[in-house]
């Protein structure tokens, strides 16, 4: 149990950072490309501001990822013993094709601007983006395979591969990958929108900030409906391959035709029913089977074989709810941008409040899919129980406490630092726009910043 909490804590913490970076890196490629095309310094300033946030996010993502590579062995020995022949190569390819590519070209992307030609620098940025995406690809292949295993046979209780193409292109992989990549793009878009809105409110009226905000808002407005569509396809796929998970998501206790869509309910595991249902008749059947009275298999068919219902049920609603809010905000802001050419203050404030909404939606979605698969770690092949370690609980408790403290601290430091960086950029732009480019310089900017901060506050 402690192993499970520890891994859940670790993976929840880890997922936050790649979620931002997979898409943020492509967005940086876009900023750089715009600069190359237009030679407009504002694009370069946007690039330089966000590349630093990328670096910070990357650093935290890497260190929490290293922790995970160790935990496979320490906390889940049964996992590698049983499905190592499949998980191993996938993880190996992730390290070999993605990690080195990212880490090596990241340094050129960050520090190499005046050491290599502009073209090489752009290529380095592009390669880092390819690296992060490859990394996402391999890890989602593995995760999808654990959800919907294919292309293997069991010999003496150990999985052996029969077809690598079936392992890689397992039934849920395309949907999961698309859903996750879009989630990443939306998370990054809302982060950029939120921080840029914050800078605008603080009086930073430079074109670079507006470029970033406009771009992020439009990106979110286009991708949000696409995400809803892909999410629907993903749901259908889950309905086909993992009916027990869908039953938990929808709170369907008995198999029924014409199942209602529950807007709200309190699932009760002991009485195996829902309380306080607020429902739209027949809608769940319509969505999942595209028939008004299509059949949805209920949890009673998977007794003892299905996940705890409440966390899956609530997480799913949280994800959908946040998603709808994000959609509303993205469209409203795009409307303001396209037709009014300005953002009202209340809208900017709402955008700041929604800075991390992508994180919440992604985490909620992640819980739906991961808890929804329980009690299995690999659907139908390996239960979580079998994979867990025999390490003394007090040792795990000790390391768990250590990790939780570190993660809590880092999360706060990360969020605080983003706003500190935004504040610093605002101050520099306000006092001396020409120096704004210098904000990126490492320590001199700090001295500069301190010299400048006095007159600003005196104004």
């Amino acid at each position, binding site marked *: 149990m402690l192993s499970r909490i520890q891994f859940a804590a670790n993976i929840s913490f880890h997922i936050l950072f790649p979620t931002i970076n997979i898409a943020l890196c492509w967005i940086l490629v876009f900023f750089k490309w715009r600069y190359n095309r237009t030679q407009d310094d504002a694009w370069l300033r946007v690039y330089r501001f966000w590349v630093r946030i990328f670096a910070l996010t*990357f650093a935290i993502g890497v260190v929490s990822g290293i922790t995970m590579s160790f935990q496979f062995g320490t906390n889940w020995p049964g996992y590698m013993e049983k499905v190592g022949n499949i998980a191993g190569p996938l993880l*190996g390819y992730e390290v070999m094709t993605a990690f080195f590519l990212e880490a090596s070209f990241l340094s050129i992307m960050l520090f190499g601007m005046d050491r290599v030609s502009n073209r090489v620098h752009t290529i380095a940025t592009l390669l880092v983006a390819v690296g992060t995406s490859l990394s996402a690809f391999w890890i989602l292949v593995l995760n999808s395979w654990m959800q919907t295993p294919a292309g293997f046979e069991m010999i003496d209780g150990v999985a052996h591969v029969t077809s690598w193409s079936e392992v890689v292109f397992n039934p849920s992989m395309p949907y999961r990958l698309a859903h996750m990549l879009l989630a990443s793009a939306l998370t990054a878009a809302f982060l950029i929108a939120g921080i840029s809105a914050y800078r605008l409110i603080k009086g930073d009226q430079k074109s670079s900030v507006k470029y970033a905000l406009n771009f992020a808002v439009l990106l979110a407005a286009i991708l949000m409906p696409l995400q809803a569509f892909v999410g629907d396809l993903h749901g259908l796929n889950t309905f086909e391959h993992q009916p027990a998970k869908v039953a938990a998501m929808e709170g369907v206790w008995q198999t029924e035709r014409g199942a209602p869509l529950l807007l709200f309910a309190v699932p009760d595991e002991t009485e195996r029913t829902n309380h306080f249902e607020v429902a739209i008749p027949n809608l769940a059947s319509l969505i999942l089977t595209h028939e008004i009275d299509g059949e949805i298999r209920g949890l009673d068919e998977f007794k003892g074989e299905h996940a705890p219902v409440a966390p899956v049920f609530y997480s799913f609603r949280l994800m959908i709810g946040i998603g709808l809010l994000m959609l509303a905000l993205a469209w409203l802001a795009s409307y303001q941008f396209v037709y009014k050419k300005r953002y009202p203050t209340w809208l900017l404030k709402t955008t700041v409040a929604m800075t991390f909404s992508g994180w919440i939606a992604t985490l909620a979605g992640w819980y739906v899919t991961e808890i929804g698969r329980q009690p299995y770690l690999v659907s139908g092949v390996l239960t979580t129980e079998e994979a867990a370690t025999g390490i003394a609980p007090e040792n795990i408790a000790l390391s768990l406490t250590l990790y939780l403290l570190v993660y809590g601290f880092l999360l706060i430091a990360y969020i605080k630092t983003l706003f500190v960086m935004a504040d610093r950029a605002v101050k520099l732009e306000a006092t001396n726009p020409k120096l704004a480019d210098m904000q990126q310089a490492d320590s001199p900017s*700090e001295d500069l910043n301190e010299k400048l901060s006095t007159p600003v506050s005196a104004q």
Partner: protein
Amino acid sequence: MEFVTESSTVNWLPMVFIALMGLSFLVYAILDGYDLGVGVLLPTDKAAANQAARDKMIYSIGPFWDANETWLVLAIGLMLIAFPKAHSIVLQALYLPTALMLFGLILRGVSFDFRTKAPSKDKHKWDLAFKAGSLIATLCQGYMLGRYVTAFDTSTAATLFALLSAICVTAGYCYVGSAWLVMKTEGELQKRSAKWAIWSNRFMALGIVAVCIANLSIDPVIADKWLGFPQVFILIPLVMLFGFMFVTVELYLRKVPMADDFGCWYPFVCAIIIFTLCFCGLAYSFYPYIVPNQLTIFEAASAPASLLVIFWGAVIVLPVIIGYTIFAYKVFWGKTSQLNY
């Protein structure tokens, strides 16, 4: 040795993978060794001169540490993939030091980035966190190595040996770190680095001798591997080579800075040779065991089909990785300058 004969058709796969894994650990120890060492050596107090020295030292490793650390992920990853049983035995036996080492790596990895972004009054604190993280990670790695070579023996003697190993590995990393600084810096900082290098070189040499003696006296099989006839003839030139490098490095470092910075790379190259020889020595002592006295690489290996899949990937990908690693080092070649981004 029976295990070599059974299923001889696929015997080369575990050998190839133990070689790849070993190579990754070695590259890790050298590369992350120097940046961990630089972290351990950071001066602590708040004086402006020391702040400047810290900045310079951290700039010198800035473009590299991330890729350096990836070698650890590759090494552990290869162990997980190719020898999953060994991975789980070793890491479960070393559970707490592993967790603590990861804590150290997390701490230094994030402080590296936070130090330039946090409010400037906090910079000094993040520098201290960077130093502390480097020291914790280094000590833990040394301790784990000590535990590993004593086959996870829990006696007091073995624990003392592991603690000794922790100090020796830290001295080794400090040596390669300060040798890196001698190569990458100039002026006052270079002179300081040379002093650090002299001292850590001495401690490392003492450590190597102590570890060798301890190891040879613990395990008669290993003692025979080195001291038996005719193997002892490999040992003699090795000892002479070590002695020669120790003396010449010390003499060189006393003269730093030389005119035109003559030979500034010499201590670092010696560090690479020393690390490589120590590593080969360990590998020679333990082969074919992957978990000392418990599990051979042949018993621990994964299914050949899966290993083959990775093998062909590695054949294609590793040269590419080495290629662009060299490119990255070339881009940041020469004396360290300020990092702008």
